């Protein structure tokens, strides 16, 4: 399928430089390559955002992107999306668990 897009001169020049640097065969091939990269990255980011908003689990995100759980964990790390955002609560839970354990031992 053919698509026509208008590129600003500076971007066109940069694509020409990349075509040479990446050793790709043509301007079109470079545009396709870059678009594919951008689409993949945007898809990953959108899915990772669902995790960040607490709307999906890591496993569900992995399924949406058709990647393994291990890969999904690395995608979240790449985007620097924190696994948790409730550290205060985590510390409170840690304190509570240790308190309960110590009082059970007495």
């Amino acid at each position, binding site marked *: 399928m053919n698509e026509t897009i208008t590129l600003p001169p500076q971007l066109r020049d940069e694509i020409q430089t990349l075509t040479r640097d990446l050793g790709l065969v043509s301007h079109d091939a470079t545009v396709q390559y870059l678009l594919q990269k951008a689409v993949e990255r945007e898809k990953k980011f959108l899915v990772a955002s669902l995790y960040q908003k607490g709307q999906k689990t890591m496993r569900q995100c992995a399924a949406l992107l058709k990647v*393994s*759980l*291990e890969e*999904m964990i690395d995608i979240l790390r*790449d985007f620097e999306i924190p696994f*948790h955002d409730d550290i205060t609560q985590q*510390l409170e839970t840690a304190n509570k*668990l240790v308190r309960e*354990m110590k009082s059970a031992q007495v």
Partner: protein
Amino acid sequence: MLFAIDTSTLIILQKLGWLNLCRYGDNKFIWPPSVTVELKLQKSKNKEIFDLLDSGVTNEVEIRNRLSFAEISTTDTEVISLAHERSATVLSEDKLLCKKASKLGLATISVAGLIMTFYQRGFFSKEECLTRWKELYEGKFLSKPEYHELLQGIMP
């Protein structure tokens, strides 16, 4: 302490090289059979995790009654069900899983929180605790604000 752990958290512990955390003190780590199945499907094959299982340090435990949750998968549901049945704390890095477990009144904790319990129970020195948190931060398992919050939580 008894912890019901999920697949992603086991993988994270393995990525960090921290599976030996399962060997400290009288802590027990359990997971449902679906977690084992899922681990077997991962590319890295998770040999170290299965070594822990084989050596009896961690245990796969059958669930008698599976709870029902909308929005989360069978494996996550089984981890919560197991924690509920055994009065265990859910050890998970998954935000939504923890949210569902909390709604049931279950205690949930992350790896960073687990490190804190190790410090409070004397398994780790303050330096060890700080080193581990730094490693979590540098490995991008923790954000900068969270890391600083943790530091504030331990500093006098």
